[in-house]
């Protein structure tokens, strides 16, 4: 089989002007009347025309320009056909050539074959065996196999990055759930294979597409548990989760602390607390109680005087709502935020029971429980001012509370003597 090297029909035609080419018979009739055979394999455009069910090409012109335009157009159709044989035939294709006066100067005559009229039906056709002699340099085959074997993780992931970037440029596809999930999966795959840089790059480049991932529990947990960062990697690793809503993260932490993602959740929350402190504080102050209980422990090192008013308001709310477990936590936060002010305000609460009763609108029994909770908070957060506060408080209270305060004072004394 001669694989053709001849592409420029015009060069041949100018030396050998023809009036007709019969494609099936592979004969050419020249202008001088001679008929000769030609090897259609050597003329790709005629081979293509034969494949398109044309039987004969008739030339009615001498104009090189027209011949050239026609042959280049046919060659272009061939290229389109090679690239997409399934749908190239749907495009409008002008097989003939016309001169400036609209006269038909090159005619492609079709074989008379009726088109398939039935809807496109297909059965499993015979796929020919591939057992003819291969005739390929063994070294070339080895090179291809080696190329497959060497398709390492990085190569595969870089390929995916290209795909995702092309998707972003594509004007037809819109951001959708499925693309979000795909981006998430590729990030997770990157992390599972130790490619932290790639994961971070994808997460940053496509952060606007990750919303559906964060809503998908299994994918979210997969991402979290995919990689356990070392201390010097946490900042980079945490950037993968930059777009995860805080609320989602906190709920995940609450439900999955004992799961395989637990250690990573702790690392992520610690990092997020450090880098987004104010955001977490605002979130915590407005969150439901069980989330507040979870979050306050993360925030304890970060309270400052500027947070005091909000914290005190939160304490009063907990007192009003009988959230006894929250009271010590708020007290702890208040003391860390502004110890002097905290002790002063708590002392006022103890001294002005009527204030507390009016606040909570409940019985003295409740008031007693609340006050004990307040003391509990102080007990858990011993500071320089704790002992002097308790000593000031002791004379102003009676009963169980007084006993409790006495014990606290004694305990602090013993501690300071050690």
């Amino acid at each position: 089989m001669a694989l053709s090297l001849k592409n420029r029909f015009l060069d041949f035609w100018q030396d050998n002007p023809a009036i007709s080419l019969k494609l099936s018979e592979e004969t050419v009739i020249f202008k001088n009347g001679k008929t000769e055979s030609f090897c259609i394999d050597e003329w790709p455009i005629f081979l293509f025309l034969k494949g398109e069910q044309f039987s004969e090409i008739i030339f009615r012109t001498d104009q090189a320009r027209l011949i050239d335009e026609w042959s280049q157009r046919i060659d272009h159709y061939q290229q389109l056909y090679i690239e997409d044989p399934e749908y190239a035939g749907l495009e409008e294709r002008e097989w003939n050539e016309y001169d400036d006066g609209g006269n038909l100067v090159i005619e492609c005559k079709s074989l008379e074959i009726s088109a398939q009229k039935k809807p496109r039906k297909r059965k499993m056709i015979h796929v020919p065996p591939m057992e003819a002699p291969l005739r390929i340099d063994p070294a070339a085959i080895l090179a291809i196999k080696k190329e497959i074997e060497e398709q390492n993780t990085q190569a595969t992931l870089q390929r995916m990055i290209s795909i995702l970037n092309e998707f972003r440029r594509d004007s037809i596809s819109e951001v959708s759930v499925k693309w979000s999930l795909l981006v998430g999966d590729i990030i997770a795959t990157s992390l599972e294979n130790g490619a932290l840089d790639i994961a971070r790059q994808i997460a940053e480049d496509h952060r606007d597409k990750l919303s559906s991932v964060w809503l998908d529990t299994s994918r979210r947990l997969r991402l979290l548990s995919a990689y356990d960062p070392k201390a010097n990697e946490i900042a980079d690793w945490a950037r993968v989760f930059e777009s995860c809503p805080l609320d989602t993260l906190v709920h995940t932490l609450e439900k999955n602390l004992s799961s395989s993602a637990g250690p990573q959740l702790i690392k992520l929350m610690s990092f997020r607390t450090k880098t987004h402190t104010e955001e977490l504080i605002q979130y915590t102050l407005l969150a439901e109680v069980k989330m507040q209980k979870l979050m306050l422990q993360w925030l304890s090192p970060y309270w400052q005087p500027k947070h005091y008013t909000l914290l005190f308001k939160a304490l009063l709310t907990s007192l009003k709502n009988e959230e006894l477990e929250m009271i010590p936590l708020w007290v702890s936060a208040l003391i860390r935020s502004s110890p002097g002010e905290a002790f002063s305000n708590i002392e006022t609460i103890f001294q002005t029971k009527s204030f507390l009763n009016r606040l909570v609108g409940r019985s003295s029994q409740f008031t007693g429980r609340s006050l004990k909770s307040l003391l509990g908070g102080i007990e858990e957060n011993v500071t320089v001012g704790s002992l002097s506060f308790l000593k000031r408080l002791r004379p102003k209270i009676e009963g169980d509370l007084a006993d409790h305060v006495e014990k606290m004072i004694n305990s602090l004394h013993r501690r300071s003597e050690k």
Partner: protein
Amino acid sequence: MKARLINDVSGIINCEYSPFEAEFEALAEIKEYDEYTYLHSLNVARLSVGLGKRLEFNNEMIVDLGWAALLHDLGKLKVPIDILNKATKFSPEEKAIMLSHPLESLAVFSELQSVSLDRLRRLSAAFEHHQRFDLKGYPIVHKKHSIHPYSRIVAIADTFDAMTTDRIYQRRTLPDVALKIMAQGFGSVFDPILLQAFITSLGAYPVGTLVRLNDERLAVVMNYHDKSELDRPIVMGVEYQKEIDLSKTENKEIKIVSSEFPEDYDINIDEVLESNAR
């Protein structure tokens, strides 16, 4: 349907069901959506795996290649059926939708199942099989990288199968002509080594081709043996059921001049091949 699917796939690649459950599920979606695309995917897989076996890929590569081929048109699940089966010119919008199917392939898979590294590798062909060897195809990639060898094989198999399939608006191209046309894409559309291997392993006239000899006889290409020239296979005369080995010296004057459509002569090629096999 699951049993048929497993049967169809096991005829092509040797793999257990459970490690590839997600892939089977994806293939089932294709079958459910469009039978034509499903059968085309099976054929592309047969051709791709056939080439892989000739190149002596190991079993793991064969399985990966097989799945890459089986799922290469997964993105067509997102092309409306009326566009997929259209027999007239596409509008610009329809064309854009059709051209987006490689891009949609990966996303479609992730809807069914989380992807892993192995799956991403197998799905590369779904994205790359229209990109061309010289990366001038689609989807356009702005950062150039070499196309995965599986994608390069699938591109060849996909083109050959599409060319040699009848359509409502167009008759198929005969296999030998298809190979010659594809040869115009050496090094541009197709990987030259892989295309050459594909052509030579099929032979210039693939088994099952109806050919006309220079003495006007019709014959069916039956086989090639290891001493056969590319265009001189063993053929079986249609009228006189006699086998002729064109590579033998005594037959050197006999040549194949053209290929023909069997249906134009009411010849059932499958029957001819089966009776010879008996």
